[in-house]
């Protein structure tokens, strides 16, 4: 069973980043790490390959600058190899262009299953997984809580407003995985050492046969017209509890006549 896991490499969310006033994009001059949201897909992929008893997890990632820091983390967790699509022309890509690039890379792997997160931590459009599925003419299930594969069918628990649906999906297919549904393993020391020698196949747009004009800034076909600081709310009342804070809360609620 061959599983492709999309692994986005992003600036550390603990470092909030800045909007570049010139280009109106997020500045990304910091080192990239594996998006935590994708660590669940990596873990789920590894578990499915284990359960099948054969196959491997192949990572697919797109960046403008050859960065592999995040991929090494996922390789250390146990993924077998990676395809990195890197090209300066990719800077500024929107979600659809990103999906086109990822789909072209995924197609080379002929996977049984493609896993993604439901949304990335930095751009969080949440549209890339389904765009990939449509571009590859594949069925998809989004918001998966669990996945079981048997023969040519994946059985997926899909999150809903008030519970979950059980969805059966023919393979190959694209499944987006909800955060927190599995416990991503910590890379072992052995894993980290092994990751250094695992193959990372770096491709540029020409190698994928993609016209650079269809991606990046020009391909996005959308522009930021204005930015504005959101008005700051009025500062509230802050009190230290001296044993009677509950009375202040009750008085606040009484003033609103809500009880």
């Amino acid at each position, binding site marked *: 069973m061959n599983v492709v896991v999309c692994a986005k490499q992003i600036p550390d969310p603990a470092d909030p980043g800045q909007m570049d006033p010139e280009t*109106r994009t997020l500045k990304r001059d910091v080192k990239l790490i594996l998006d935590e949201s994708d660590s669940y897909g990596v873990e789920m992929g590894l578990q499915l390959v284990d359960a099948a008893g054969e196959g491997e997890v192949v990572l697919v990632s797109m960046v403008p600058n050859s960065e592999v820091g995040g991929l090494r983390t996922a390789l250390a967790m146990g993924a077998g190899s990676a395809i990195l699509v890197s090209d300066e022309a990719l800077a500024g890509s929107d979600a659809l262009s990103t999906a086109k690039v990822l789909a072209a890379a995924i197609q080379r792997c002929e996977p049984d299953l493609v896993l993604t997160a439901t949304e990335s931590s930095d751009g969080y459009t949440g549209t890339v997984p389904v765009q990939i*599925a*449509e571009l590859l003419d594949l069925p998809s299930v989004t918001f998966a809580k669990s996945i079981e594969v048997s023969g040519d069918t994946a059985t997926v628990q899909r999150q809903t407003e008030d519970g*979950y649906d059980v969805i059966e999906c023919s393979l190959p*297919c694209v499944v987006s995985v909800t955060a927190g549904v599995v416990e991503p393993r910590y890379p072992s020391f052995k894993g980290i050492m092994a990751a250094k020698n695992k193959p990372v196949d770096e491709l540029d747009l020409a190698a994928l046969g993609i016209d650079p004009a269809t991606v990046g800034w020009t391909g996005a076909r*959308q522009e930021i017209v204005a930015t504005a600081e959101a008005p700051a709310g009025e500062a509230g009342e802050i*009190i*230290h509890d001296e044993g009677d804070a509950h009375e202040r809360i*009750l008085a606040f609620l009484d003033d609103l006549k809500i009880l």
Partner: protein
Amino acid sequence: MGISKIWIYGESTGGVVSTATLELLAKARTIGDTVEVVVHGDASAVAAELGEHGASTVLSIGELGDGLPGPRVASAMATAIDAGNGPDVLLLATSYDGRDVAGRLSAKIDAPVITNVVDLTVDGDRLLGVESIFGGSLDISTGFTGDGTAIFLVRPKSFAAESAGGAAAAVDSLEGGDLGNTGGSTVKDRFAEESTGPKLDEAAIVVSGGRGLGSAEHYELIETLAGLLKGAAGASRAVVDAGWVPYSYQVGQTGKVVKPAVYLACGISGATQHLVGMKGSANIIAINKDEEAPIFGVADLGIVGDLHKVVPKLIEALQARA
């Protein structure tokens, strides 16, 4: 030319239109000359409600059977758009199925999507989507540079649903196209969690608990307080990820957006991803033992203290009143 025709992807359960769909209608009817709603299932069951909220026509793609909406709705929309019968603007709610439809359609008609929209503004002939980033401190307005249908995914609670007193919408049909391999997922079973009291995203009062509760057993404090206030209980993602409560309790970027009259946050730090789900609340009360916690930045009333002392006393006082 302006914005003449707007489509909305209409979602409903058992003949009841989703609040998010009605919110989109409330905004769309102030922008477009004609507003049409694309639905699946029984269109006549929802035509009155959709018409009342401003739709002129309900376009039905028919029954889905056990198929998922994404590929089927997108294929019907793409067929109409390719034939030149599409809208200037398509609005969808950021829901499970709304995102599926938007993603599929975007790839089919090769059109980008503006996502995470919290407001829509008219800029000459085109519509701009406002996204709120950096935890709501910066608003960015984005517009499309190309022609064709402008697709926007709008976050719930961005607009207030309100009746326009309109007559029932006309019902028409929209033909689906070939699904290729994309229709290969089917619903086998559905499970709904039992819940009592008001729904989280509709309650007038929401009491939410975070990691500061310390352990799963202590979540009962939140349930009890919410019950006494006739509100709904919510949670931060830390608590959901820890398995203390189901995902349906989660408030925030990847959970529900709530805008109650009162939001009471107990032991929640106020990470930006939590704030985007609740900072639109009319009144925010926060209890946190760390006076530096970012949640105090949005609080109307902030209590610096131990929730294990404050909340039980609040519960006692409310019980004494009842």
